[in-house]
């Protein structure tokens, strides 16, 4: 009688073990791998889109021509997603640096930096053209 009970308990244990293992398979098959990071390419795309949008209607060039780099920094800080930092350097067609102050919203660097090169053309006479180099990174 005792031996017979032992056998039944083993079967029940094995049954539970099978249920647990198959449950583990079923659950783990649906485990999602969430990746909320901004990729390098996406960062460059975000930066370029922000520059294009700010340059619409000649605003970007107007900021540079008038030397209003504070406005440029504030506008860029607002349109870029929270947590994205940038550093902007502006050159004229002779590749002479135009910005007299550092245009950035953060002093901290990162290992993963995306670079965007953009050409901004003015809409007023005389015709002015600037080459903008922007580095972007995500605050870690």
């Amino acid at each position, binding site marked *: 009688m005792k031996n017979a009970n032992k056998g039944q308990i083993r079967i029940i244990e094995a049954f539970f073990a099978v249920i647990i293992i198959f449950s583990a*398979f079923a659950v783990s098959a649906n485990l*999602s791998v969430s990746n909320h990071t901004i990729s390098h390419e996406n960062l460059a795309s975000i930066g370029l889109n922000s520059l294009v949008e700010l340059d619409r209607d000649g*605003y970007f060039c107007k900021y540079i021509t008038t030397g209003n780099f504070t406005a440029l920094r504030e506008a860029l800080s607002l349109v870029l997603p929270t947590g994205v930092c940038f550093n902007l350097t502006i050159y004229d067609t002779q590749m002479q640096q135009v910005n007299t102050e550092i245009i950035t919203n953060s002093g901290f660097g990162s290992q993963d930096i995306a670079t965007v090169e953009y050409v901004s053309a003015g809409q007023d006479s005389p015709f002015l053209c600037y080459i903008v180099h922007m580095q972007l990174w995500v605050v870690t």
Partner: protein
Amino acid sequence: MPAVSVDTFFACTLMVIVVLSAMAGASKIILPYVNNAVGLNAPERYEQLSKYVLLSAGAPSDWGQNGQADPQVFGLGKADSGNPYELDVDKVTRLNDENQYSVSYADAFASFGLPDVSFSLEIKPVFEVITNLTAIFDADNITVYQFEILTEKDGAPVSAEIKCRIIAESYLNTADTIPSDGKVYQNITIPDSVNGPALLVAFARHAYDDRIVSYGSYAFAHNSTETETRGTYLKLSPLNYLLNASIVHPETNLSEAYAVTFDYSASLEQVSRSNDSAVYQIPRFLDPSPVVIVLTGRNSTVFFAEWVAYPQVPTRFGADFTNSASLSSIYAFTYMVKVGSVIYRCTVRLGGPRE
């Protein structure tokens, strides 16, 4: 419990842990390398699709203006626009399900033409305007309402210029423009002779770029009972510079209609009227600002003010990915877009079956 059972239990536990670790490791390390080409290019594919939605005008290219037409090819871009990421005011407006001309996600999904890709769109102002009523002061023949107005982006303060407009029965008033570093208090004075409820519309224009504009609203009691929720008396649907007001309650009489922006305000002209609806012409304002349209009237003896923004933003449209993270690969792309003359933030989310 016999020792054999304890052994079996620990053995099973160990086995489960090993199996789970192996599966997690395999999915993280090995699977990306054994996926097919589509799987490897999925992020790029979804990014291009998100751009396509915003850059293409769709077909017919004027599907936004015609409230009865559904798009055959889905795209939100403004037709004949020379600028990228410039969206059509009416196409964006038709994404809002509060609008009676809104397109359904089923129609949009079908016209998108990719049965393996679900999508959602979220368009909202670049920063938020939050209005709170903080104090009320009674004086002779007037009541002063003190509002706290916050301008912020993801909780961070945003410098802006604030302009408040107050609407009540036969009453439209504008407060002086005030600068704000993210938080400011504004006193609003309303004569006691004016009947409420009153509606405060606070516009905020970014201090450095006048195309970045947002707004907030606050309905409050003034010489009246408490305010009703939006849509109680009228359903407002702007489209193609016409406002369709569907009357919800039968005993509703319409009175003044206003359109307000940051710089301008105007009374709306009624184009047509029937028993259950009225149509108004929306003026084309020059200043970069969302247009807030306020329609006032009376239901029996109760005064009301219903409002809607044109374009009807913020809006969220499409698939709900909240609970489908385990079944889908979801990619989100954020763009700055121009709708009308105002810059908005648009997030496109695309998802497909997990490879």
